[in-house]
């Protein structure tokens, strides 16, 4: 194994498992600045995780095994997803393969666990959030798969590592298929990270919650797992956005060097979007995300036309 692939694996593990909470921290920090507030430090998510780790968990009356296991299952499935999403075109296999459809499956497992937990405690607000989350997930999953399929067509394989290598260079600017795929994936990023205009991570009003709703009852280490898992979802989709749909270098070392810059820029982009847009009506969200799916379909069409 070459030095480049060893370093890729190290960056993937350290970045995905340890540095991920920094990403939502950065978004919150810049969002506050853009809104003229001083806001929390980018390290705030770490402080919250530490605080939660020291607290005891709460099992609501009548809750059972499903409620207790859900945070562990959700967290372990995003860990598996971290092992799956490569940071460079030279990343070695880490035991779970590198396939894009497996990513969709693992994210679905996390969603299933959290939504089932909401049923276990029959919390009205939890179920409201879970049912909205799963409804939006229908169009998100279709759009995610289609957007990545554009990358797969360009690279000729559904392996994410090969996709990072196959889309390297400035193809994203010159190839209409990839550009349309990028538009589509941008909507997936917003939906998966639960940010405005799709969801408002800052809301404290239970009636408007989507991703936060099923977490309402959790406390202590359970909540720490779930908040950490939400941060890791930022890492997963932002890394994919940077290494597949944004222009990236051919060389592994430059890919790894530019990745932090790309992630910071994407976080800034999320902060700007959150500042400029308001949360949209929940029932309009599937339409918005489905528009992304249509963009990806156009991308597939333009790729097929280029070939003929």
């Amino acid at each position: 194994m070459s030095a480049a692939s060893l370093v890729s694996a190290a960056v993937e593990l350290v970045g995905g498992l340890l540095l991920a909470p920094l990403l939502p921290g950065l978004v919150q920090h810049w969002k506050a600045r853009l809104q003229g507030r001083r806001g929390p430090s980018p390290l705030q998510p770490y402080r919250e995780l530490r605080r939660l780790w020291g607290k005891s968990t709460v099992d609501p009356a009548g809750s059972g095994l499903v409620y207790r296991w859900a945070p562990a299952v959700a967290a372990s499935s995003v860990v598996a997803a971290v092992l799956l999403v490569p940071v460079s075109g030279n990343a070695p296999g880490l035991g779970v393969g590198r396939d894009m459809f497996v990513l969709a499956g693992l994210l679905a497992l996390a969603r299933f666990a959290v939504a089932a937990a909401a049923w276990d405690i029959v919390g009205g607000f939890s179920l409201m959030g879970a049912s909205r989350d799963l409804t939006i997930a229908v169009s998100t999953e279709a759009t995610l798969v289609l957007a990545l399929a554009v990358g797969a067509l360009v690279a000729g394989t559904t392996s994410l590592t090969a996709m990072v290598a196959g889309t390297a260079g400035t193809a994203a600017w010159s190839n209409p298929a990839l550009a349309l795929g990028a538009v589509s994936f941008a909507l997936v990023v917003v939906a998966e990270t639960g940010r405005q205009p799709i969801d408002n991570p800052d809301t404290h009003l239970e009636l408007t919650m989507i991703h936060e709703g099923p977490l309402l009852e959790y406390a202590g280490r359970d909540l720490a797992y779930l908040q950490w898992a939400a941060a890791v979802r930022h890492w997963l989709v932002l890394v994919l956005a940077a290494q597949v749909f944004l222009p990236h270098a051919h060389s592994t070392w430059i890919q790894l060097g530019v990745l932090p810059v790309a992630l910071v820029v994407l976080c800034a982009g999320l902060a700007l979007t959150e500042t400029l847009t308001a949360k949209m009506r929940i029932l309009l969200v599937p339409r918005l995300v489905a528009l992304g799916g249509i963009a990806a379909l156009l991308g597939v069409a333009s790729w097929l036309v280029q070939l003929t």
Partner: protein
Amino acid sequence: MTAAVLSAAVALLGLGIAACAAARTFRLGLTLQSAGAGLLAVSGFWALAGGTTFGSAFSGAFTPRFGVDGLTAFFLGMLGLVAAPTLAFASPYLATGPRGRVIGGLTGAFVLTLAEVLCARDPFTFLAGWELMTLLPAALILVSRSDDAARRSVFLYVAVTHIAGAGTWIAVLLAAHAGVFGGTSVLARGSGLQIAIALAALAGMGTKAGVMPLHSWLPRAHPIAPAPVSALMSGVMIKVAIYGLVRVLVDWLGVLPLWLGLVVLALGALSAVGGVVYALFQHDLKRLLAFHSIENVGIIVLGLGACLLLRTRGADAWAALALAAALLHTLNHAAFKSLLFLGAGSFERAVGSLELDRIGGLLRRMPWTGGAFLVGSLAIAGVPPLNGFASEWLTLQALVHVPVYGGLGDGLAGALALAALAATAALAILCFVKVVGLVLLGPPRRASVAEAAEAPVPMRAAVVALAGTCVALGVVPGLLVAPLARLAPWRVPVHATFALHLPGTGSLPTVGIALVLGLLAPLLFVMRGKRVAATAPTWACGQLVQPQLAWTSAGFTKPLRLVLEAVLRPEREIAVRASGGVVQEVSYTGRVPHLIDERVYAPVVRSALVTARHARRLQTGRLGTYVGYLIALVLVLLAAAKAGLIG
């Protein structure tokens, strides 16, 4: 050797059926049947692994012949895998009374009939078995239920499968006539005969498989049968129709024109999405499961469509893998759907009705059955590391390779089908989270549920064995993919390894994923610690949580219903009765009508009845009129002969 095991299996099944006749040997008979089915599974998978073929080859002559090749062996294995636990389940499930004994005997006969269709090697045996396969479940339903609603459903089932089932006769007889029964001679690609056989098979066998829009019988007939029969119908019978489709479309007809592949793909996408969407709005557990069978048949047909398209484009390796995807999903669906139907049967026995909004909390009261049901729900929802995910992954791969090898039209169709399958998977999660929540979790929603007791040991063992099968098939699907891909009549070497390192994919190391999830989740659970704060009620803005306020099935699916309002056209009625300015009573009814039933079937039935009413006027019953008809006929014929139209 395999032939001997197969004969022993058939003998045991026959002996078991005979033993069911007497009350004293009834339980023994079902046990014998179950053992026979187990041998069936052994012989089937053994023959598949060894690639052995025995018995006669296909022949268009009308003399009974039986034989086994790879495809038959796979489906026989699947039949045994489902039937063995199902028959063991039936032993305590069925009463020893005369009615139970008839059901027990007929169930065994049903298993034998399914095996007969699979082993048939001539048109006569095939069609005879095919008809018996339709009629036996009808008889089983009529023996077990005698109410009018059940009779009407059975009538509809028999009528729809017979009218549309004519397609099977046309396809099989045309194939025998053209000498392609058994794929001995090759039809020209795109010839009228090839297309006629393919379309007839799609209509006839598609109806039996429950492909939308020919599915209308399935959600009516499956839920009213006794649980073991439902499990066999959903688990195996509709798969035998898939067997027929694979035989005709893939095995016998050679390379089909592109548009036929597109038709198959479109039918698959419609069934997958339509099946799961209507499943979401069902209020009865067994009916919901029946709609999910339509969805899963749709996923299988999507794989089949991808296979046909890739074959036409000359991508033989991926065409074989697409066929393997379809067959693997067939097996996986057989495992988890029979598990879910048997689980539903246990629940029904324990709590009475299966109305979704009125169950709740069964995981605590029936831990074995409930736990197995949870595994089955995760498997059908298609989450890793269970078997549903493995075959959906392979189907997604097959679909994404359609645009890789195709042109603009089929490439776009492949991408659309890919999106449809991804959306189907997400909808299945929405649906099964709801099922798990309403049936297994939360507090009991009615008094009888609170007193539910765990099922007897054989019933428990059956569902646990099937749950184990779901886990095993999810962890080692790689073992099956290579032998299944070899079943394609265009022999291409497919290098499918244990970890599914397929070329053009990022590979699916199922063992690795299962290990990561299986080790990490318990570790994180232990790290969660034991320190728990005082138990508190769930937060409801300070309101007391009352059972009447519990979420219902309709509430959980409401966001989706509103999003799809333009397509689904849900109906709702709210009646408010006020007197003296005070609201006395508010009544609410809402339902999601089944559009295909109301917009397609209802007009057809109406116009058929109108036509029949007009036709009845011709039948006066007077002799003179009939003599008049005869004379008129002779005159018309003479005139036609004179004009040179006939003769």
